[in-house]
């Protein structure tokens, strides 16, 4: 494992996690996207050392592991589709409430107040 790349993955995860912990939905989506980048890069790195593109052309040079590439490609596309959906959800939320923040659950808050009120 190349340390620089592992560090890059770690950086992406850290930044993504930080954004995910926010209340603004836009930031949360950005966080998920960053985490997605980190995960895809990690997947690729899992294949081991870098090499020539895995295209069979008769040469003997070592090629990079194609399996993680295929897996990462699948993951990228899936993340893309779901990010698009999440953006649509954010947009819908904006249309309904004109707010970008993720609210707390109403019923949960009611019970939390009950719990505090009686104690």
């Amino acid at each position, binding site marked *: *494992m190349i340390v620089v790349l592992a560090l890059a993955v770690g950086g992406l995860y850290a930044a993504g996690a930080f954004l995910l912990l926010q209340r603004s939905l836009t930031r949360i989506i950005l966080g998920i996207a960053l985490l997605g980048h980190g995960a895809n890069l990690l997947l690729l790195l899992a294949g081991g050392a870098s090499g020539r593109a895995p295209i069979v052309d008769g040469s003997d040079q070592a090629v990079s592991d194609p399996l993680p590439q295929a897996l990462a490609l699948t993951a990228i596309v899936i993340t893309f589709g*779901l990010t698009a959906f999440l953006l649509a*959800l954010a947009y819908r939320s904006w249309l309904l409430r004109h707010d970008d923040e993720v609210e707390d659950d109403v019923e949960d808050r009611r019970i939390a107040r*009950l719990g505090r009120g009686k104690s």
Partner: protein
Amino acid sequence: MNVLVPLPVVLPLLAAALSLAAYGRTTLQRAIGLVTMTATCAASATLLTLVIRDGPMSADLGGWGPSIGIVLVADLFAVVMLAVSSAMVLAVLVYAIGSPATGDSAALFHPVYLVLAAGVSASFLTGDLFNLFVAFEVMLSASYVLMTLGGRAEQVRSGMTYVVVSLLASTLFITAVALVYAATGTVNLAELAVRMPDLPPFVRDSLGLLLLVVFGIKAAIFPLFFWLPDSYPTAPTPVTAIFAGLLTKVGVYAIIRTQMLLFQSDGPSPLLLSIAGATMLVGVLGAIAQDDIKRILSFHIVSQIGYMILGLGLFTVAGLAASIFYIVHHIIVKTTLFLVGGIVEQATGTGALRRLSGVATRMPVTAVLFLVPALSLAGLPPFSGFVAKLGLVEAGLAEHRHVIIGVSLLVSLLTLFSMTKIWGGAFWGTADEAAFVNAAPNRSGAPALMIAPTAVLVAASLAVALAAGPLYGVAESAAESLIDAGAYVRLVTGP
């Protein structure tokens, strides 16, 4: 057999495509869904009988085999889950067609619902870790759409929580897959089972724990459960019902599958047992604190997951058999309870206990349909939940795990308490005719197409109790095959 194994995935998927092509022609879409799901049920049932008779089967997709392509594995555990889940999908589909509340979004509902069915089947069948991720995504993406169907404000809000938490779990799943591949060089489960023991124990354990967290989020175990009670209740009833019955169980299935195949422990796992106990307790306490039928039931999902993890955590045949039986029982019973909750909501326009009263007087048939699964959920005899609970108690005491069994019995009492909260709050009391705004003028208060599948499921749960002997035998065989990871490997890689 090559055709039969992928069929429970292929049929609903193809039907989803057709249903899309028939976009907006509701009758045609309904027909496609009903025909396909009936066929899927038949295929799953056939698989089940064949596997019981001849042993497990596998299918090499594309004809490639384990180290090149993706393998589907129909072992007993998988086909039991498949058979139960496809039956649930069909029953809830009928309910959804009968339910007036799903009318507006029918055009979208049908294709997406079928995709959900395909994703669930694929999750059970796949023998490949990355493909399991894909199957999860298929199932989850469909669940995101179903959960926000109609786009009401509260759905959008709770949908956010649900989608964000699920996406985080998916990213962690990819992370886990990547780390597993980095350490072993394969994503095929059978090959992983062979290679895992070669890893240093701490790497193996850490991978196991990471996967436990990943699936634990989907299964809603402690401390990863909170998204569930916030999000499930806001979806339309058929959607909540099928989520309640199936989605968390797919998570439990994945936990059991990976823990047994890749990270099997020699004796009871204190970690899993503690998680089980905490999950049971927080779930049932949450349920006691709630005031809404669907929210109470949602917290009970969490609580009941604890029982399933309890059986796994013992790592014995008896424990696993009890878990498997519990899962089957719970899928049926929990789905039914949500369907009944939906009937009450449909008739009265609310699920809030403080606004409900006298449902049993106005809708006696519905009351009976609630009572049976509610008592079963609390583990009271002679219903299926009792057999499941008894199995766990015997298995746990056989391993001298007295504390956790004590907790499970206590939780059982608390479950009963919170079921009586619904019964006493909504079903008993004086019936105010004006409150039953939408009630159909019959003894069930609901359209026949909502009542019929609910009644069939109640009958099914009674049948599970009655035929518990042979069914428990099946659960035991499934548990034995799970304990013997080598059998799985031989099936996939050949002798």
